[in-house]
Protein backbone atom coordinates (compact mmCIF):
# COMPACT_ATOMS: atom_id res chain seq x y z
CA UNK A 1 0.00 0.00 0.00
CA UNK A 2 1.28 3.46 -0.85
CA UNK A 3 1.50 6.26 1.66
CA UNK A 4 -1.26 8.85 1.51
CA UNK A 5 -0.32 11.08 4.39
CA UNK A 6 2.92 11.60 6.22
CA UNK A 7 3.07 13.92 9.23
CA UNK A 8 6.54 14.69 10.58
CA UNK A 9 7.46 16.29 13.89
CA UNK A 10 4.18 18.09 14.51
CA UNK A 11 4.35 20.35 17.56
CA UNK A 12 1.75 22.72 18.93
CA UNK A 13 1.76 24.94 22.03
CA UNK A 14 -1.08 26.79 23.69
CA UNK A 15 0.63 29.38 25.86
CA UNK A 16 2.81 27.27 28.13
CA UNK A 17 0.98 24.02 27.45
CA UNK A 18 2.62 21.73 24.94
CA UNK A 19 -0.39 20.02 23.39
CA UNK A 20 1.58 18.15 20.73
CA UNK A 21 5.24 17.19 20.86
CA UNK A 22 7.05 15.87 17.82
CA UNK A 23 4.20 13.70 16.56
CA UNK A 24 4.96 11.76 13.37
CA UNK A 25 2.75 9.24 11.68
CA UNK A 26 1.95 7.85 8.25
CA UNK A 27 -1.38 6.80 6.84
CA UNK A 28 -1.54 4.40 3.92
CA UNK A 29 -4.06 4.48 1.14
CA UNK A 30 -7.22 2.47 1.79
CA UNK A 31 -6.67 1.78 5.48
CA UNK A 32 -8.60 2.76 8.55
CA UNK A 33 -6.15 4.42 10.88
CA UNK A 34 -7.15 4.85 14.50
CA UNK A 35 -5.93 7.58 16.83
CA UNK A 36 -6.63 6.89 20.49
CA UNK A 37 -5.46 8.17 23.82
CA UNK A 38 -6.76 9.27 27.21
CA UNK A 39 -8.67 12.53 27.58
CA UNK A 40 -6.49 15.56 26.90
CA UNK A 41 -3.87 13.51 25.07
CA UNK A 42 -3.96 15.87 22.08
CA UNK A 43 -6.01 13.84 19.62
CA UNK A 44 -8.36 16.63 18.64
CA UNK A 45 -5.51 19.14 18.56
CA UNK A 46 -3.71 16.89 16.12
CA UNK A 47 -6.89 16.70 14.08
CA UNK A 48 -7.26 20.46 14.05
CA UNK A 49 -3.67 20.90 12.90
CA UNK A 50 -4.08 18.28 10.20
CA UNK A 51 -7.28 19.86 8.86
CA UNK A 52 -5.87 23.38 8.92
CA UNK A 53 -7.95 24.90 11.72
CA UNK A 54 -4.79 25.38 13.80
CA UNK A 55 -1.40 26.18 12.37
CA UNK A 56 1.40 23.96 13.66
CA UNK A 57 4.32 25.45 15.60
CA UNK A 58 6.67 22.90 14.08
CA UNK A 59 6.61 20.04 11.63
CA UNK A 60 4.93 19.48 8.31
CA UNK A 61 2.45 17.26 6.59
CA UNK A 62 2.84 15.76 3.13
CA UNK A 63 -0.42 14.62 1.64
CA UNK A 64 -0.89 12.82 -1.65
CA UNK A 65 2.56 13.88 -2.79
CA UNK A 66 2.22 17.56 -1.86
CA UNK A 67 3.09 19.68 1.17
CA UNK A 68 -0.08 20.82 2.96
CA UNK A 69 -0.51 24.49 3.75
CA UNK A 70 -1.44 24.07 7.41
CA UNK A 71 -3.48 26.97 8.72
CA UNK A 72 -5.59 27.29 5.57
CA UNK A 73 -8.52 24.90 6.06
CA UNK A 74 -10.08 25.52 2.65
CA UNK A 75 -6.82 24.53 0.96
CA UNK A 76 -6.60 21.40 3.06
CA UNK A 77 -10.12 20.47 1.98
CA UNK A 78 -9.24 21.17 -1.62
CA UNK A 79 -6.18 18.94 -1.28
CA UNK A 80 -8.51 16.14 -0.19
CA UNK A 81 -8.90 15.93 3.61
CA UNK A 82 -12.44 16.19 4.97
CA UNK A 83 -13.45 16.04 8.59
CA UNK A 84 -16.33 15.75 11.02
CA UNK A 85 -16.42 17.26 14.50
CA UNK A 86 -16.56 15.70 17.94
CA UNK A 87 -19.50 17.93 18.89
CA UNK A 88 -21.46 17.82 15.64
CA UNK A 89 -21.24 21.06 13.67
CA UNK A 90 -23.97 21.24 11.09
CA UNK A 91 -25.59 24.29 9.51
CA UNK A 92 -28.54 23.94 11.84
CA UNK A 93 -31.01 26.12 9.97
CA UNK A 94 -30.32 24.72 6.55
CA UNK A 95 -31.97 21.59 5.23
CA UNK A 96 -30.07 18.31 5.20
CA UNK A 97 -29.81 18.60 1.43
CA UNK A 98 -28.41 22.15 1.60
CA UNK A 99 -25.85 21.04 4.18
CA UNK A 100 -24.47 18.50 1.74
CA UNK A 101 -24.68 21.03 -1.12
CA UNK A 102 -22.45 23.37 0.89
CA UNK A 103 -20.01 20.47 1.12
CA UNK A 104 -19.70 20.56 -2.68
CA UNK A 105 -18.34 24.11 -2.46
CA UNK A 106 -14.69 23.32 -3.05
CA UNK A 107 -15.45 21.09 -6.06
CA UNK A 108 -17.54 23.73 -7.86
CA UNK A 109 -16.71 27.16 -9.15
CA UNK A 110 -19.77 29.34 -9.91
CA UNK A 111 -19.06 32.93 -8.82
CA UNK A 112 -21.22 36.05 -8.69
CA UNK A 113 -21.54 36.58 -12.44
CA UNK A 114 -22.48 32.95 -13.04
CA UNK A 115 -24.97 32.98 -10.18
CA UNK A 116 -26.67 36.14 -11.45
CA UNK A 117 -26.73 35.29 -15.16
CA UNK A 118 -27.37 31.60 -14.48
CA UNK A 119 -25.68 30.59 -17.70
CA UNK A 120 -25.63 27.04 -18.95
CA UNK A 121 -22.42 26.12 -17.17
CA UNK A 122 -23.77 27.32 -13.84
CA UNK A 123 -27.10 25.55 -14.32
CA UNK A 124 -25.32 22.31 -15.14
CA UNK A 125 -23.07 22.70 -12.13
CA UNK A 126 -26.05 23.33 -9.84
CA UNK A 127 -27.81 20.26 -11.22
CA UNK A 128 -24.66 18.22 -10.63
CA UNK A 129 -24.35 19.50 -7.04
CA UNK A 130 -27.99 18.68 -6.37
CA UNK A 131 -27.64 15.18 -7.81
CA UNK A 132 -24.50 14.50 -5.84
CA UNK A 133 -26.04 15.79 -2.61
CA UNK A 134 -29.04 13.47 -3.06
CA UNK A 135 -26.81 10.51 -3.86
CA UNK A 136 -24.79 11.10 -0.73
CA UNK A 137 -27.87 11.41 1.46
CA UNK A 138 -29.03 8.07 0.03
CA UNK A 139 -25.57 6.60 0.62
CA UNK A 140 -25.62 7.40 4.33
CA UNK A 141 -29.27 6.40 4.53
CA UNK A 142 -31.10 9.64 5.31
CA UNK A 143 -32.52 10.52 1.90
CA UNK A 144 -36.02 10.73 3.35
CA UNK A 145 -34.93 13.61 5.58
CA UNK A 146 -33.49 15.69 2.71
CA UNK A 147 -35.79 18.67 3.23
CA UNK A 148 -35.80 18.66 7.01
CA UNK A 149 -33.69 21.19 8.82
CA UNK A 150 -30.46 19.73 10.12
CA UNK A 151 -31.45 20.66 13.67
CA UNK A 152 -34.54 18.47 13.43
CA UNK A 153 -32.65 15.27 12.68
CA UNK A 154 -32.00 12.69 15.38
CA UNK A 155 -28.53 12.55 16.86
CA UNK A 156 -27.52 9.51 14.84
CA UNK A 157 -28.87 11.05 11.63
CA UNK A 158 -26.96 14.27 12.33
CA UNK A 159 -23.75 12.25 12.49
CA UNK A 160 -24.64 10.63 9.18
CA UNK A 161 -25.42 14.00 7.67
CA UNK A 162 -22.07 15.34 8.82
CA UNK A 163 -20.34 12.39 7.17
CA UNK A 164 -22.34 12.94 3.97
CA UNK A 165 -21.32 16.61 3.99
CA UNK A 166 -17.67 15.63 4.46
CA UNK A 167 -17.94 13.12 1.60
CA UNK A 168 -19.34 15.88 -0.64
CA UNK A 169 -15.88 17.48 -0.63
CA UNK A 170 -14.66 14.35 -2.47
CA UNK A 171 -11.97 13.57 0.09
CA UNK A 172 -9.05 11.23 -0.32
CA UNK A 173 -8.86 11.03 3.46
CA UNK A 174 -11.92 11.18 5.69
CA UNK A 175 -11.12 12.24 9.24
CA UNK A 176 -13.77 11.36 11.82
CA UNK A 177 -13.46 12.91 15.29
CA UNK A 178 -15.15 10.60 17.81
CA UNK A 179 -18.06 9.68 15.54
CA UNK A 180 -19.53 7.28 18.13
CA UNK A 181 -19.50 9.82 20.97
CA UNK A 182 -22.91 9.99 22.63
CA UNK A 183 -24.38 7.18 20.55
CA UNK A 184 -26.31 4.22 21.91
CA UNK A 185 -25.39 0.63 21.01
CA UNK A 186 -27.74 0.43 17.99
CA UNK A 187 -26.49 3.72 16.56
CA UNK A 188 -22.89 2.67 17.10
CA UNK A 189 -23.47 -0.61 15.28
CA UNK A 190 -25.07 1.24 12.36
CA UNK A 191 -22.14 3.68 12.30
CA UNK A 192 -19.70 0.79 12.27
CA UNK A 193 -21.34 -0.72 9.21
CA UNK A 194 -21.34 2.70 7.50
CA UNK A 195 -17.59 3.08 8.13
CA UNK A 196 -17.10 -0.47 6.85
CA UNK A 197 -19.00 0.43 3.69
CA UNK A 198 -16.87 3.55 3.24
CA UNK A 199 -13.73 1.47 3.39
CA UNK A 200 -15.08 -1.07 0.91
CA UNK A 201 -15.80 1.82 -1.46
CA UNK A 202 -12.16 2.82 -1.30
CA UNK A 203 -12.02 5.60 1.30
CA UNK A 204 -9.05 6.07 3.58
CA UNK A 205 -10.21 6.91 7.08
CA UNK A 206 -8.56 8.52 10.07
CA UNK A 207 -10.58 7.76 13.17
CA UNK A 208 -10.33 9.31 16.61
CA UNK A 209 -12.33 7.28 19.04
CA UNK A 210 -12.87 6.70 22.72
CA UNK A 211 -14.76 3.50 22.17
CA UNK A 212 -11.77 1.16 22.25
CA UNK A 213 -13.84 -1.81 21.13
CA UNK A 214 -14.94 0.07 18.02
CA UNK A 215 -11.38 1.11 17.22
CA UNK A 216 -9.92 -2.33 17.75
CA UNK A 217 -12.65 -3.90 15.64
CA UNK A 218 -12.40 -1.49 12.73
CA UNK A 219 -8.88 -0.19 12.41
CA UNK A 220 -6.00 -1.64 10.44
CA UNK A 221 -3.47 0.30 12.47
CA UNK A 222 -3.68 2.37 15.61
CA UNK A 223 -1.56 5.17 17.05
CA UNK A 224 -1.75 6.09 20.73
CA UNK A 225 -1.19 9.63 21.98
CA UNK A 226 -0.45 10.48 25.59
CA UNK A 227 0.41 13.96 26.89
CA UNK A 228 0.91 15.14 23.31
CA UNK A 229 3.36 12.42 22.37
CA UNK A 230 2.93 9.33 20.27
CA UNK A 231 3.66 6.36 22.52
CA UNK A 232 2.70 3.53 20.16
CA UNK A 233 1.77 2.80 16.56
CA UNK A 234 0.93 -0.71 15.41
CA UNK A 235 -1.81 -3.16 14.52
CA UNK A 236 -4.58 -3.23 17.17
CA UNK A 237 -3.58 -6.56 18.70
CA UNK A 238 -0.02 -5.37 19.36
CA UNK A 239 -1.12 -1.98 20.68
CA UNK A 240 -3.45 -3.66 23.14
CA UNK A 241 -0.51 -5.51 24.72
CA UNK A 242 1.88 -2.57 24.68
CA UNK A 243 2.83 -1.84 28.32
CA UNK A 244 3.18 1.92 27.64
CA UNK A 245 -0.39 2.02 26.39
CA UNK A 246 -1.72 0.11 29.35
CA UNK A 247 0.17 2.45 31.65
CA UNK A 248 -1.27 5.49 29.94
CA UNK A 249 -4.83 4.23 30.25
CA UNK A 250 -4.77 2.39 33.56
CA UNK A 251 -1.70 3.60 35.47
CA UNK A 252 1.72 2.07 36.12
CA UNK A 253 0.48 -0.64 38.52
CA UNK A 254 -1.28 -2.46 35.68
CA UNK A 255 1.54 -2.34 33.15
Amino acid at each position, binding site marked *: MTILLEARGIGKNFGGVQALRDVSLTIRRGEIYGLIGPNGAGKTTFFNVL*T*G*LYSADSGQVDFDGRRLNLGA*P*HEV*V*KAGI*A*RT*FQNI*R*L*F*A*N*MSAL*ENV*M*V*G*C*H*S*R*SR*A*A*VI*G*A*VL*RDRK*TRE*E*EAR*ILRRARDLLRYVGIESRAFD*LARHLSYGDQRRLEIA*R*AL*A*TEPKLLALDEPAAGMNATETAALKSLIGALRRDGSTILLIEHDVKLVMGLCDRVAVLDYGEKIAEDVPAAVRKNPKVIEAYLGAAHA
Partner: protein
Amino acid sequence: MIADWRKDRQVVRAGIGLFALALAVLPFVVSASFGNSWVRVLDFALLYIMLALGLNIVVGFAGLLDLGYIAFYAVGAYLYAVLSSPHLAGAFPSLAPGLAWPIWVILPLGALVAGLFGILLGAPTLRLRGDYLAIVTLGFGEIIRIFLNNLNAPINLTNGPQGITGIAPLHIGGVVLGRGQDILGFTVPGIHLYYYLFLLLALGIVFVTVRLEDSRIGRSWVAIREDEIAAKACGINTRNVKLLAFAMGASFGGVAGGLFAGFQEFVSPESFSLTESVMVLCMVVLGGMGNIGGVILGGLLLSVLPEILRWGAAPVQQALFGRVLLDPESLRMLLFGLALILVMLYRPAGLWPSAVRRREFEEAAEEEKEIVGLEEGSA
Protein backbone atom coordinates in the same frame (compact mmCIF):
# COMPACT_ATOMS: atom_id res chain seq x y z
CA MET B 1 -50.91 17.23 -15.71
CA ILE B 2 -49.25 19.14 -18.51
CA ALA B 3 -52.41 21.15 -19.14
CA ASP B 4 -52.51 22.05 -15.43
CA TRP B 5 -48.95 23.09 -15.48
CA ARG B 6 -49.53 25.29 -18.51
CA LYS B 7 -52.53 26.82 -16.85
CA ASP B 8 -50.50 27.51 -13.69
CA ARG B 9 -47.89 29.13 -15.75
CA GLN B 10 -50.47 31.30 -17.47
CA VAL B 11 -51.86 32.35 -14.10
CA VAL B 12 -48.39 33.23 -12.89
CA ARG B 13 -47.75 35.22 -16.05
CA ALA B 14 -51.06 37.05 -15.72
CA GLY B 15 -50.23 37.81 -12.09
CA ILE B 16 -46.83 39.21 -12.99
CA GLY B 17 -48.44 41.27 -15.77
CA LEU B 18 -51.00 42.76 -13.41
CA PHE B 19 -48.36 43.50 -10.80
CA ALA B 20 -46.18 45.23 -13.40
CA LEU B 21 -49.14 47.27 -14.56
CA ALA B 22 -49.94 48.26 -10.97
CA LEU B 23 -46.33 49.37 -10.41
CA ALA B 24 -46.44 51.34 -13.68
CA VAL B 25 -49.61 53.29 -12.92
CA LEU B 26 -48.87 53.66 -9.19
CA PRO B 27 -47.26 57.15 -9.38
CA PHE B 28 -50.21 58.48 -11.40
CA VAL B 29 -52.73 57.05 -8.96
CA VAL B 30 -50.78 58.39 -6.00
CA SER B 31 -50.30 61.87 -7.42
CA ALA B 32 -53.95 62.10 -8.51
CA SER B 33 -55.20 61.04 -5.07
CA PHE B 34 -52.71 62.59 -2.70
CA GLY B 35 -50.51 64.97 -4.69
CA ASN B 36 -47.02 64.93 -6.14
CA SER B 37 -45.23 65.06 -2.79
CA TRP B 38 -46.34 61.47 -2.17
CA VAL B 39 -44.67 60.33 -5.37
CA ARG B 40 -41.52 61.78 -3.89
CA VAL B 41 -42.13 59.64 -0.81
CA LEU B 42 -42.37 56.63 -3.13
CA ASP B 43 -39.08 57.60 -4.78
CA PHE B 44 -37.39 57.63 -1.40
CA ALA B 45 -39.05 54.35 -0.46
CA LEU B 46 -37.42 52.76 -3.52
CA LEU B 47 -34.01 54.12 -2.51
CA TYR B 48 -34.47 52.69 0.98
CA ILE B 49 -35.54 49.34 -0.46
CA MET B 50 -32.27 49.21 -2.41
CA LEU B 51 -30.33 50.03 0.77
CA ALA B 52 -32.23 47.46 2.81
CA LEU B 53 -31.58 44.76 0.20
CA GLY B 54 -27.88 45.61 0.22
CA LEU B 55 -27.65 45.48 4.00
CA ASN B 56 -29.64 42.24 3.98
CA ILE B 57 -26.79 40.52 2.14
CA VAL B 58 -24.38 41.39 4.94
CA VAL B 59 -26.70 41.06 7.95
CA GLY B 60 -29.41 38.68 6.76
CA PHE B 61 -27.45 36.22 4.64
CA ALA B 62 -23.90 36.33 5.98
CA GLY B 63 -24.92 37.18 9.57
CA LEU B 64 -22.43 40.03 9.95
CA LEU B 65 -23.94 42.87 11.98
CA ASP B 66 -23.11 46.14 10.24
CA LEU B 67 -24.05 49.42 11.95
CA GLY B 68 -22.21 51.70 9.53
CA TYR B 69 -23.90 50.69 6.30
CA ILE B 70 -24.97 54.22 5.41
CA ALA B 71 -21.29 55.03 4.75
CA PHE B 72 -21.56 53.23 1.41
CA TYR B 73 -24.63 55.26 0.52
CA ALA B 74 -22.55 58.33 1.35
CA VAL B 75 -19.66 57.15 -0.82
CA GLY B 76 -21.99 56.64 -3.80
CA ALA B 77 -23.71 59.97 -3.24
CA TYR B 78 -20.51 62.00 -2.87
CA LEU B 79 -18.92 60.30 -5.85
CA TYR B 80 -21.86 61.31 -7.99
CA ALA B 81 -21.91 64.79 -6.45
CA VAL B 82 -18.23 65.49 -6.97
CA LEU B 83 -18.20 64.20 -10.53
CA SER B 84 -21.42 65.87 -11.63
CA SER B 85 -21.15 69.33 -10.12
CA PRO B 86 -18.91 72.34 -10.72
CA HIS B 87 -17.65 71.97 -7.15
CA LEU B 88 -14.32 70.30 -7.96
CA ALA B 89 -13.43 73.11 -10.36
CA GLY B 90 -12.56 75.16 -7.27
CA ALA B 91 -9.69 72.82 -6.43
CA PHE B 92 -8.91 71.59 -9.94
CA PRO B 93 -9.76 74.36 -12.45
CA SER B 94 -9.13 72.02 -15.36
CA LEU B 95 -12.23 70.04 -14.39
CA ALA B 96 -14.67 72.95 -14.85
CA PRO B 97 -17.61 72.79 -15.24
CA GLY B 98 -17.84 69.21 -13.92
CA LEU B 99 -17.46 65.95 -15.78
CA ALA B 100 -21.13 65.23 -16.47
CA TRP B 101 -20.51 61.57 -17.15
CA PRO B 102 -23.56 59.61 -18.28
CA ILE B 103 -25.52 57.54 -15.80
CA TRP B 104 -24.32 54.16 -17.13
CA VAL B 105 -20.77 55.17 -16.32
CA ILE B 106 -21.34 56.93 -13.05
CA LEU B 107 -23.67 54.44 -11.35
CA PRO B 108 -21.50 51.36 -12.00
CA LEU B 109 -18.50 53.44 -10.91
CA GLY B 110 -20.39 54.29 -7.71
CA ALA B 111 -21.11 50.60 -7.16
CA LEU B 112 -17.46 49.73 -7.75
CA VAL B 113 -16.04 52.39 -5.45
CA ALA B 114 -18.57 51.61 -2.72
CA GLY B 115 -17.71 47.92 -3.15
CA LEU B 116 -14.03 48.75 -2.62
CA PHE B 117 -14.98 50.63 0.53
CA GLY B 118 -16.90 47.53 1.57
CA ILE B 119 -13.71 45.50 1.26
CA LEU B 120 -11.84 48.24 3.12
CA LEU B 121 -14.27 47.81 6.00
CA GLY B 122 -14.38 44.03 5.72
CA ALA B 123 -10.66 43.31 5.63
CA PRO B 124 -9.72 44.43 9.16
CA THR B 125 -12.90 42.97 10.68
CA LEU B 126 -12.67 39.43 9.34
CA ARG B 127 -12.09 37.89 12.74
CA LEU B 128 -14.87 39.83 14.45
CA ARG B 129 -18.46 38.81 14.95
CA GLY B 130 -21.56 40.04 16.71
CA ASP B 131 -21.14 42.93 19.15
CA TYR B 132 -17.47 43.51 18.34
CA LEU B 133 -18.13 43.73 14.63
CA ALA B 134 -21.07 46.05 15.28
CA ILE B 135 -18.84 48.47 17.19
CA VAL B 136 -16.16 48.55 14.51
CA THR B 137 -18.67 49.07 11.70
CA LEU B 138 -20.32 51.81 13.72
CA GLY B 139 -16.95 53.51 13.98
CA PHE B 140 -16.39 53.09 10.26
CA GLY B 141 -19.69 54.77 9.44
CA GLU B 142 -18.82 57.70 11.67
CA ILE B 143 -15.30 58.00 10.23
CA ILE B 144 -16.71 58.33 6.71
CA ARG B 145 -19.21 60.95 7.84
CA ILE B 146 -16.57 62.94 9.73
CA PHE B 147 -14.23 62.78 6.75
CA LEU B 148 -16.96 64.20 4.55
CA ASN B 149 -17.52 66.91 7.13
CA ASN B 150 -13.85 67.90 7.23
CA LEU B 151 -12.46 67.29 3.76
CA ASN B 152 -12.83 70.93 2.76
CA ALA B 153 -9.19 71.48 3.70
CA PRO B 154 -6.40 71.32 2.67
CA ILE B 155 -8.03 70.54 -0.69
CA ASN B 156 -11.70 71.28 -0.85
CA LEU B 157 -13.09 67.89 -1.92
CA THR B 158 -16.41 67.70 -0.09
CA ASN B 159 -17.11 71.34 0.80
CA GLY B 160 -17.40 70.32 4.46
CA PRO B 161 -20.62 70.75 6.42
CA GLN B 162 -22.19 73.01 3.79
CA GLY B 163 -22.34 70.09 1.41
CA ILE B 164 -22.20 70.14 -2.37
CA THR B 165 -24.80 72.05 -4.34
CA GLY B 166 -25.43 72.44 -8.05
CA ILE B 167 -25.29 68.72 -8.79
CA ALA B 168 -26.49 67.95 -12.29
CA PRO B 169 -29.81 66.08 -12.06
CA LEU B 170 -29.94 62.50 -13.28
CA HIS B 171 -30.17 62.35 -17.02
CA ILE B 172 -30.35 59.57 -19.57
CA GLY B 173 -29.06 60.60 -22.96
CA GLY B 174 -30.54 64.06 -23.52
CA VAL B 175 -33.50 63.46 -21.20
CA VAL B 176 -33.14 65.24 -17.87
CA LEU B 177 -35.29 63.28 -15.44
CA GLY B 178 -35.91 66.22 -13.14
CA ARG B 179 -37.97 67.96 -15.80
CA GLY B 180 -41.29 66.66 -17.02
CA GLN B 181 -41.39 65.00 -20.40
CA ASP B 182 -44.07 64.95 -23.05
CA ILE B 183 -44.65 61.34 -23.97
CA LEU B 184 -47.40 60.37 -26.43
CA GLY B 185 -49.20 63.64 -26.01
CA PHE B 186 -49.39 63.87 -22.22
CA THR B 187 -46.91 65.20 -19.71
CA VAL B 188 -45.11 62.87 -17.32
CA PRO B 189 -43.77 64.89 -14.36
CA GLY B 190 -40.09 64.60 -13.44
CA ILE B 191 -40.87 63.01 -10.12
CA HIS B 192 -42.59 60.17 -11.98
CA LEU B 193 -39.60 59.67 -14.23
CA TYR B 194 -37.39 59.29 -11.18
CA TYR B 195 -39.85 56.72 -9.89
CA TYR B 196 -39.49 54.66 -13.04
CA LEU B 197 -35.70 54.81 -13.00
CA PHE B 198 -35.53 53.88 -9.31
CA LEU B 199 -38.07 51.12 -9.80
CA LEU B 200 -36.04 49.67 -12.65
CA LEU B 201 -32.84 49.66 -10.59
CA ALA B 202 -34.60 48.34 -7.48
CA LEU B 203 -36.02 45.47 -9.55
CA GLY B 204 -32.53 44.84 -10.89
CA ILE B 205 -31.19 44.63 -7.34
CA VAL B 206 -34.05 42.31 -6.33
CA PHE B 207 -33.21 40.10 -9.30
CA VAL B 208 -29.51 39.95 -8.42
CA THR B 209 -30.30 39.22 -4.76
CA VAL B 210 -32.78 36.45 -5.57
CA ARG B 211 -30.31 34.80 -7.94
CA LEU B 212 -27.45 35.09 -5.46
CA GLU B 213 -29.49 33.68 -2.60
CA ASP B 214 -30.11 30.44 -4.47
CA SER B 215 -26.55 29.81 -5.60
CA ARG B 216 -23.23 28.44 -4.48
CA ILE B 217 -22.31 31.91 -3.18
CA GLY B 218 -25.59 32.39 -1.32
CA ARG B 219 -25.27 29.00 0.34
CA SER B 220 -21.76 29.77 1.51
CA TRP B 221 -22.96 33.09 3.03
CA VAL B 222 -25.63 31.29 5.00
CA ALA B 223 -23.10 28.61 5.95
CA ILE B 224 -20.75 31.15 7.57
CA ARG B 225 -23.75 32.69 9.34
CA GLU B 226 -24.70 29.30 10.74
CA ASP B 227 -21.27 27.99 11.72
CA GLU B 228 -18.06 29.56 10.54
CA ILE B 229 -15.77 26.72 11.58
CA ALA B 230 -17.93 24.12 9.87
CA ALA B 231 -17.97 26.36 6.79
CA LYS B 232 -14.17 26.34 6.78
CA ALA B 233 -14.19 22.57 7.13
CA CYS B 234 -16.42 22.41 4.04
CA GLY B 235 -13.72 24.11 2.00
CA ILE B 236 -15.21 27.60 2.01
CA ASN B 237 -12.64 30.35 1.94
CA THR B 238 -14.43 32.34 4.63
CA ARG B 239 -12.23 35.39 4.13
CA ASN B 240 -13.14 35.79 0.47
CA VAL B 241 -16.79 34.94 0.99
CA LYS B 242 -17.14 37.53 3.76
CA LEU B 243 -15.38 40.19 1.75
CA LEU B 244 -17.67 39.39 -1.15
CA ALA B 245 -20.71 39.87 1.09
CA PHE B 246 -19.39 43.24 2.26
CA ALA B 247 -18.56 44.31 -1.29
CA MET B 248 -21.90 43.21 -2.78
CA GLY B 249 -23.91 44.85 -0.02
CA ALA B 250 -21.86 48.03 -0.27
CA SER B 251 -22.18 48.22 -4.05
CA PHE B 252 -26.00 48.30 -3.80
CA GLY B 253 -25.61 51.14 -1.31
CA GLY B 254 -23.30 52.93 -3.75
CA VAL B 255 -25.86 52.75 -6.56
CA ALA B 256 -28.62 54.04 -4.26
CA GLY B 257 -26.30 56.85 -3.12
CA GLY B 258 -25.60 57.99 -6.67
CA LEU B 259 -29.33 58.07 -7.40
CA PHE B 260 -29.93 60.02 -4.20
CA ALA B 261 -27.38 62.70 -5.15
CA GLY B 262 -28.76 63.10 -8.66
CA PHE B 263 -32.30 63.19 -7.31
CA GLN B 264 -31.72 65.76 -4.53
CA GLU B 265 -29.13 67.75 -6.51
CA PHE B 266 -27.56 68.41 -3.12
CA VAL B 267 -25.61 66.31 -0.63
CA SER B 268 -24.30 67.10 2.84
CA PRO B 269 -22.85 64.94 5.62
CA GLU B 270 -26.05 65.35 7.63
CA SER B 271 -27.84 62.87 5.39
CA PHE B 272 -25.49 60.06 6.40
CA SER B 273 -25.74 60.01 10.17
CA LEU B 274 -25.82 56.94 12.41
CA THR B 275 -29.61 57.31 12.62
CA GLU B 276 -29.80 56.49 8.93
CA SER B 277 -27.74 53.31 9.38
CA VAL B 278 -29.99 52.29 12.23
CA MET B 279 -33.06 53.04 10.14
CA VAL B 280 -31.90 50.77 7.32
CA LEU B 281 -31.05 48.05 9.84
CA CYS B 282 -34.56 48.43 11.29
CA MET B 283 -36.00 47.89 7.82
CA VAL B 284 -34.08 44.64 7.49
CA VAL B 285 -34.85 43.33 10.97
CA LEU B 286 -38.46 44.51 11.12
CA GLY B 287 -39.28 43.27 7.64
CA GLY B 288 -37.73 39.84 8.18
CA MET B 289 -34.00 39.29 8.12
CA GLY B 290 -32.80 37.10 5.28
CA ASN B 291 -36.14 37.10 3.46
CA ILE B 292 -36.07 39.28 0.37
CA GLY B 293 -39.83 39.90 0.36
CA GLY B 294 -39.78 40.84 4.02
CA VAL B 295 -36.88 43.23 3.57
CA ILE B 296 -38.69 44.99 0.71
CA LEU B 297 -41.80 45.26 2.87
CA GLY B 298 -39.71 46.65 5.74
CA GLY B 299 -38.10 49.26 3.49
CA LEU B 300 -41.45 50.34 2.10
CA LEU B 301 -43.21 50.54 5.46
CA LEU B 302 -40.49 52.30 7.40
CA SER B 303 -39.99 54.94 4.73
CA VAL B 304 -43.69 55.61 4.10
CA LEU B 305 -45.04 55.27 7.65
CA PRO B 306 -43.29 58.36 9.12
CA GLU B 307 -44.68 60.43 6.25
CA ILE B 308 -48.20 59.17 6.87
CA LEU B 309 -47.83 59.96 10.56
CA ARG B 310 -46.53 63.43 9.79
CA TRP B 311 -49.45 64.04 7.47
CA GLY B 312 -52.09 62.61 9.79
CA ALA B 313 -50.89 63.79 13.19
CA ALA B 314 -52.32 67.33 13.11
CA PRO B 315 -55.76 66.67 11.56
CA VAL B 316 -56.42 63.67 13.81
CA GLN B 317 -55.64 65.70 16.94
CA GLN B 318 -57.80 68.52 15.64
CA ALA B 319 -60.71 66.12 15.23
CA LEU B 320 -60.21 64.39 18.59
CA PHE B 321 -59.35 67.25 20.90
CA GLY B 322 -60.39 70.30 18.97
CA ARG B 323 -56.83 71.58 18.87
CA VAL B 324 -53.28 70.36 18.13
CA LEU B 325 -51.80 69.26 21.47
CA LEU B 326 -48.51 67.79 20.32
CA ASP B 327 -46.25 69.02 17.57
CA PRO B 328 -46.78 66.58 14.67
CA GLU B 329 -43.04 66.38 14.04
CA SER B 330 -42.26 65.00 17.50
CA LEU B 331 -45.45 62.98 17.77
CA ARG B 332 -44.72 61.07 14.61
CA MET B 333 -41.38 59.84 15.89
CA LEU B 334 -43.06 58.83 19.13
CA LEU B 335 -45.65 56.77 17.27
CA PHE B 336 -43.01 55.41 14.95
CA GLY B 337 -40.96 54.18 17.91
CA LEU B 338 -44.07 52.67 19.44
CA ALA B 339 -44.80 50.81 16.20
CA LEU B 340 -41.26 49.40 16.17
CA ILE B 341 -41.59 48.17 19.75
CA LEU B 342 -44.95 46.54 19.06
CA VAL B 343 -43.71 44.73 15.98
CA MET B 344 -40.64 43.43 17.80
CA LEU B 345 -42.80 42.28 20.73
CA TYR B 346 -45.43 40.50 18.70
CA ARG B 347 -43.49 39.48 15.61
CA PRO B 348 -39.89 39.09 16.79
CA ALA B 349 -38.82 37.38 13.57
CA GLY B 350 -40.06 40.33 11.50
CA LEU B 351 -43.29 41.03 9.63
CA TRP B 352 -42.52 38.54 6.88
CA PRO B 353 -39.73 36.30 8.11
CA SER B 354 -37.93 33.74 6.05
CA ALA B 355 -39.45 30.34 6.70
CA VAL B 356 -36.39 29.09 8.51
CA ARG B 357 -35.99 32.00 10.87
CA ARG B 358 -39.66 31.83 11.79
CA ARG B 359 -39.22 28.24 12.92
CA GLU B 360 -36.14 29.22 14.86
CA PHE B 361 -38.08 31.79 16.89
CA GLU B 362 -41.06 29.50 17.41
CA GLU B 363 -38.82 26.76 18.73
CA ALA B 364 -37.03 29.12 21.10
CA ALA B 365 -40.43 30.19 22.44
CA GLU B 366 -41.54 26.55 22.82
CA GLU B 367 -38.39 25.65 24.71
CA GLU B 368 -38.91 28.60 27.01
CA LYS B 369 -42.45 27.46 27.73
CA GLU B 370 -41.21 23.97 28.53
CA ILE B 371 -38.59 25.31 30.90
CA VAL B 372 -41.12 27.55 32.62
CA GLY B 373 -43.51 24.58 32.84
CA LEU B 374 -40.83 22.39 34.44
CA GLU B 375 -39.93 25.05 36.98
CA GLU B 376 -43.56 25.54 37.91
CA GLY B 377 -44.01 21.79 38.20
CA SER B 378 -41.08 21.41 40.57
CA ALA B 379 -42.03 24.41 42.73
